[in-house]
């Protein structure tokens, strides 16, 4: 109960601090705090492997990638405070409050907060004890969810190829010293036209 309270305050406090932090690095650090608090929530609910993955992949790898790009682009970037659409901030906060009220209503009404709403904690604890959390996860992932697992590999390949294409265009601009890709394509086609004319 005490651990849940600490986790709740830490997760919500870090999320709110993200909204008001002016610096991008501070936002990233608060996000790491919120993710560590969520890992604690996963531990409290018997999802041990997911909690470890949350810290290793999210708070580790992905946030390091974020910080790397922030450092690459410059950390002293100030966010402009003028609104292009008047009243955008107030409308956004109003809509967010409406969404929060709706989600709270669903959580309280639909799941029956007081009664615990069909708690399967005993079954999950038994599952964590007999085959073990990782074994149970692996059996489910490689039997029931085998096709989504394979489709995930396609997604990763597409992401890798996409990033390689983006990066290649960057290096071409740098090495040839031209402002955009279209000019290099134009010169190439011109050269081909000349060659065909000569031939």
């Amino acid at each position: 109960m005490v651990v849940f309270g600490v986790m709740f305050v830490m997760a919500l406090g870090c999320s709110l601090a993200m909204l008001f932090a002016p610096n991008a690095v501070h936002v990233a650090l608060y996000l790491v705090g919120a993710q560590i608090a969520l890992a604690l929530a996963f531990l409290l609910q018997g999802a041990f492997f997911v909690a470890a993955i949350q810290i290793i992949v999210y708070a580790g790898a992905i946030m390091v990638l974020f910080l790397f790009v922030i450092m690459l682009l410059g950390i002293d970037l100030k966010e402009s405070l003028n609104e292009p659409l008047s009243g955008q901030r107030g409308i956004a906060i109003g809509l967010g409050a409406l969404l929060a009220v709706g989600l709270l209503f669903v959580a309280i009404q639909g799941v029956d907060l007081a009664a615990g709403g069909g708690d399967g904690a005993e079954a999950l604890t038994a599952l964590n004890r007999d085959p073990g959390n990782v074994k149970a996860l692996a059996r489910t992932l490689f039997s029931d969810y085998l096709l989504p697992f394979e489709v995930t590999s396609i997604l990763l390949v597409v992401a890798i190829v996409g990033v390689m294409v983006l990066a290649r265009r960057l290096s071409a601009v740098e090495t040839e010293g031209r402002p955009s890709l279209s000019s290099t394509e134009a010169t190439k086609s011109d050269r081909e036209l000349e060659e065909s004319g000569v031939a």
Partner: protein
Amino acid sequence: MSVAPGFYLVLAGLMFAIGVVGVLVRRNAIVIFMFVELMLNAVNLMFVTFARQHGTVDGQVLVFFVLVVAAAEVVVGLAIISLIFRHRVSSNVDEINLLRR
């Protein structure tokens, strides 16, 4: 597991709403990406809570898929942001209007 699962859902709902407000309010593209990550994290918490309510690990498996999608999205999105930053030295989403012409 002494605390009722409804309280975890309340936390996840509040975090998701904060993420939505952050995406709508902030102007820096990287910060907007971080709020998207916050929303994905809130959804992960919901999945784990539902897995606990059903007494199976299916919801925990779905967290892995959310994680993979988040990783791929971050890699591609940050590559696009750094490309835009090379061309016009800004990460303000209001100044990115290349598709407007």
